[in-house]
């Protein structure tokens, strides 16, 4: 169940066998400390150092299919852009304890035949939780390699049955200043909004994430459920999702609204299209010293380049 594989997913993004072997071992151990992925949220005891060491030790042998080393768990959970909890990189880890990821309700609506309001457990039912190791490239020119747990977004899109006129999917983050103190400040317009073209959203690589490193998603990483689109800049991966709507028109995502000359709707990782203020040709992999070249579509060009054939990526950045 936990390690189910879908035949539709190309082998290139499957988790290598050693992860599964490793994972079985891990699940056995984690049951003892109560860190299963059975949606039992425990955010309060998450930062425990002992657990952190345990996780790092257990996953340190795991590498993604390109033999890239995983970014340590401590870095993945302490260096975050999540402006709902402050604009500093360490703010989310420090301030996100006020978020209550359970109970959690997600609304599915817009142009679809099967809209509905779901409790989190019901919302994720169509998907099978599986491991996927993805590169994450931030628009700020740093990157990580992260072992997520989740499933293809397509599963919940299929259940919603989008109507023929639906061309885009729009997501919204929770808008609650009590739980997200950073929303007191107008640095961005709240709630945070992101969107995908329907074909991008249905792509098997596009993932809804409920866990990282085999444990439930920490608040600072977007608990209880977030989006990951590995060939796009990190800000497309909207966190703490409460709504999902099918639209005919392209939604205006938050960063595009904030500075449309710098952040577009597509936000595909592209070393040849610089941000107006800095180069995107290279990136710093967290944990590495020398910058490494940024790959087209973050290294997922074989899988996704066809989505953009005929488009001028300098205009549709």
């Amino acid at each position, binding site marked *: 169940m936990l390690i189910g594989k879908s035949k539709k997913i190309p082998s290139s993004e499957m988790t290598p066998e050693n992860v599964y072997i490793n994972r079985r071992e891990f699940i056995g151990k984690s049951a003892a400390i109560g860190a299963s992925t059975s949606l039992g949220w425990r955010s309060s005891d998450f930062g425990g150092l002992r657990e952190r060491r345990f996780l790092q030790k257990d996953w340190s042998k795991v590498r993604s299919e390109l033999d890239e080393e995983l970014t340590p768990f*401590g870095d993945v959970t302490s260096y975050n852009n999540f402006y709902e909890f402050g*604009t500093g990189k360490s703010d989310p880890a420090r301030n996100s304890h006020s978020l209550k990821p359970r109970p959690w309700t997600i609304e599915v609506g817009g142009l679809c035949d099967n809209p509905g309001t779901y409790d989190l457990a019901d919302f994720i039912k169509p998907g099978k939780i599986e491991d996927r190791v993805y590169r994450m490239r931030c628009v700020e020119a740093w990157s990580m390699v992260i072992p997520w747990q989740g499933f293809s977004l397509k599963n919940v899109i299929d259940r919603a049955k989008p109507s023929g006129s639906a061309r885009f999917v729009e997501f919204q983050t929770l808008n609650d200043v009590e739980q997200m103190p950073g929303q007191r400040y107008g640095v*961005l317009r709240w709630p945070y909004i992101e969107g995908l073209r329907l074909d991008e959203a249905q792509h098997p690589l596009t993932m809804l994430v409920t866990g990282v490193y085999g444990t439930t998603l920490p608040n600072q990483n977007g608990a209880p459920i977030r989006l990951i689109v590995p060939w796009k800049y990190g800000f497309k991966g909207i966190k703490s999702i409460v709504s999902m709507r099918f639209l005919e028109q392209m939604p205006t995502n938050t960063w595009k609204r904030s500075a449309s000359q710098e952040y577009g709707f597509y936000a595909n990782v592209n070393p040849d299209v610089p941000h107006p*203020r800095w*180069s995107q040709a290279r990136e*710093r992999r967290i*944990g590495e*010293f020398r*910058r490494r070249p940024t790959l087209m579509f973050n290294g997922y060009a074989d899988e996704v380049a066809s989505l953009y054939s005929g488009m001028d990526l300098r205009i549709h950045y």
Partner: protein
Amino acid sequence: MTDSTFGLQSKKRLRLIFLRFFIWFAGMTPAVWLVWRLLTDQLGANPIEEVLHRLGDVSLVFLLVTLSITPLRGITGWNEVIKIRRPLGLFGFFYLTMHFLTYAVLDQTLDFEFIIEDVLERPYITIGFTAWVLLIPLAVTSTKGWIRRLGKRWKNLHRLAYLATTLGVAHFYWQVKADTYWPTLAALLIVGLMVYRIRGNRSGSWPQVLQSRKH
């Protein structure tokens, strides 16, 4: 020399020693703090970026405080405070140089192809680099010998500190993504300092301003 004037002078000397100690303490604290965080692994997941940004912050604070000294003297009438202006400015230049070196050596690993592209094509890096270059002659001519040699021209040359610091604030403002709180504060301060300075210059030279304020 009477006893009382001697007492006054030694008091003054003591105060100067204290001021000098204070300047060195204030000037070295950020460096010690960064080294401490480096040695105890407290710089976070992206230590190079953290060091780069903190050095930039610190140099801008020192430069803004340096430019605040003359207005501070004007407002409070505390003439001695001018003695700490030069060391403050030099610490600002020191941290700015460290900021640039961190960028060039640690962040860009001396890949000159990329550094040159950044300096020429990324406006916020262009102006930040310009600010550093502008401050080099000021740091060089900060010695007593140069002050004597340049005479009146020294003062004009050192007005470049306003231009360099303004460029530094613009560099700071330009590189943030959305949260402009601190850059805005820095911008308000530099505008206030320049307004104060321009108004002061219009109503005469500094000693006269001081005179008029005392009465």
